């Protein structure tokens, strides 16, 4: 299966890895006793480990090449995965939805509030991912400052609650709309930009918002943040902490359902098609009569709308926010969710969010290597499955022929 040359190459790679990781894996300086420990066994581990991994990598690459060859032969390359094929059949679809909904409903009764809390966070990222998916996945505008809109939502609730005592439900639409306005505000200057340039400007925008929040103490109370934000009201009834956690969880389940419903509709609408056309070819898209400015601004503001709403939920859930929650890392995670899950694919983004948020929580043992694993997963995904876990497919239309009989 492997030629000698491939084995040799893997061996070279593993030697290179040993060399690279030597300072951190082998040499250990005990700074108190001023001694140096040499952990030679680690050399062997790294050597064997990287050799095996590199062989695996080669094997999967080989498999992938073979598969793509087969796909072309079969001629059916609409890119449907198993999930899509299951979802097309109404019977299975209803069953899957039923099971998922049932699980979501009974989840809080089966687990601790700690677990419920984690799940709520994961659901928040599902919505954030779906929101960013509009901008990045559908409209193809690489936005690295998405967290800014999340911050706008969170701070609008925190501040309005702090100064005017406004409640969660009153601020929810306000936060969303404010974020959408910021989306348009960001959209205008970057209308002409694409790709890397757009990424850099949006990255800057995200940082600007965070820095303003950090330094404009009179407005946002600076790095110390705002505390004692009220939890969501429940018909005026005071909820215990545990009840509140479960309540927010159910709210998030509801939000996720509504979001999926709306994003799905958006995707299949005239506007959704325009976004995809914009992503595919900006010039052809304009030449076909699509207003680029309107379409782009709609993408930015709708994407931001969801971030703003989830921002409000975030502030209400943690009851304390400060600028440290809105760093670039947050944008990167949400973007990873979209890319890993599958750009433009709703199911993909949902799975991506659950994997990326829940896995690290349950792999706390690995915590120090979390970012390393994160990077490794992303690199591997880009090599083996650039289209994401679930590739996006386009809707097919069945045309109802009138007095015509064709297959």
């Amino acid at each position: 299966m492997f030629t000698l040359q491939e084995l040799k190459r893997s061996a070279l790679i593993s030697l290179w890895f040993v060399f690279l990781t030597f300072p951190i894996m082998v040499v250990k300086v005990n700074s108190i006793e001023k001694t140096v420990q040499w952990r030679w066994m680690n050399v062997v581990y790294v050597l064997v480990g990287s050799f095996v991994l590199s062989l695996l990598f080669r094997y999967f690459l080989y498999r992938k090449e073979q598969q793509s060859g087969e796909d072309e032969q079969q001629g059916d390359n609409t890119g449907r995965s198993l999930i899509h094929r299951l979802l097309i059949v109404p019977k299975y679809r209803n069953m899957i939805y039923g099971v998922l909904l049932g699980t979501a409903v009974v989840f809080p009764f089966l687990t601790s509030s700690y677990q419920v809390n984690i799940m709520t966070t994961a659901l928040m990222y599902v919505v954030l991912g779906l929101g960013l998916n509009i901008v990045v996945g559908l409209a193809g505008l690489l936005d690295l400052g998405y967290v800014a809109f999340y911050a706008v939502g969170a701070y609008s609730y925190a501040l309005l609650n702090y100064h005017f005592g406004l409640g969660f439900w009153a601020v929810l639409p306000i936060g969303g709309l404010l974020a959408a306005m910021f989306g348009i505000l960001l959209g205008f200057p970057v209308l002409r930009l694409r790709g890397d340039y757009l990424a850099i400007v949006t990255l800057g925008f995200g940082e600007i918002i965070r820095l303003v929040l950090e330094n404009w103490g009179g407005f946002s109370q600076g790095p110390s943040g705002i505390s004692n934000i009220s939890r969501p009201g429940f018909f005026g009834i005071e909820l215990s902490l545990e009840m509140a956690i479960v309540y927010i969880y159910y709210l998030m389940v509801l939000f996720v359902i509504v979001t999926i419903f709306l994003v799905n509709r958006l995707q299949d609408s005239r506007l959704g098609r325009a976004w995809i056309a914009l992503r595919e070819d900006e010039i052809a898209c304009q030449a076909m009569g699509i207003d680029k400015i309107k379409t782009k601004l709609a993408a930015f503001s709708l994407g931001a709308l969801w971030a703003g709403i989830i921002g409000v939920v975030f502030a209400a859930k943690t009851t304390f926010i400060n600028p440290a929650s809105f760093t670039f890392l947050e944008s990167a995670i949400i973007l990873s969710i979209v890319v890993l899950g599958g750009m433009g694919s709703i199911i993909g983004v949902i799975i991506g969010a659950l994997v990326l948020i829940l896995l690290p929580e349950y792999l706390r043992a690995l915590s120090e290597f979390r970012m390393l694993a994160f990077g490794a997963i992303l690199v591997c995904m880009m090599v083996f499955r650039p289209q994401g876990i679930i590739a996006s497919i386009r809707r097919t239309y069945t045309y109802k022929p009138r007095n015509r009989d064709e297959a």
Partner: protein
Amino acid sequence: MSETILEVHGLTMDFGGVRALNNLDLDVRSGEIAALIGPNGAGKTTFFNCLTGLYLPTKGDIFLYRRDKDKKISLKGLKPNKVTEHGLARTFQNIRLFPMMTVLENVMIGRHCRTKAFVIGAFFRGPRTRREEEEIIEMSHRILEKVGLSRFENDFAMNLPYGAQRRLEIARALATEPVLLLLDEPAAGMNPYETIELVNLIQEIATDGQSILLIEHDMKLVMSLSDRIFVMDYGKKIAQGRPEEIRLNPAVITAYLGEEVDA
């Protein structure tokens, strides 16, 4: 039949020091197939780009006559999408489809400028939006049938054979219900069989009353299809007239032979 629908006066386009279009006059009449020919680099594509708003011409005027609305519209300086809305639709010399959209969706994009639904329509999908959506699908399907692509309807555009991609571009442009259809080298890269199919298609579209302005290098195709021909060289119009006049025009012969000697 012979009313003017497009009128171009003294169109000039400079790229830095290069004058790609030099004081060009041209007109297209309703219902005709007009052709624009010229050696490589003559400025034909640049002319289309100026018409459709991708480039802003340095000088000159472009007028579109909408007899149905009794209007004379100046297209100069309008955004590409506005130009399309007013009734010019084009194809591209190097195919620019939306590769990851289905064939049907590509044509549906062409309907964009004739429909209205936006965010609210998408969210609530009321009766009007639904009707509009059905009309888009229905019409796109009909156009695909006409160009002979309905069996590819649900395939990704990028998976189509080359000739079919060119025809899909035409279908997409037709979906905008253009007053004038601009085709930039529709037969480029096609094999003889595909070219014959294309000629038939263009003739069929023209019989439906569609006015067409096409750029083409294939002389046989141009001579057999067009009612009138404009010849360009180095950004200037060097001749215009019926095919048989053009065939014998000395200036045209020099332009083409000259180019071949250079090459």
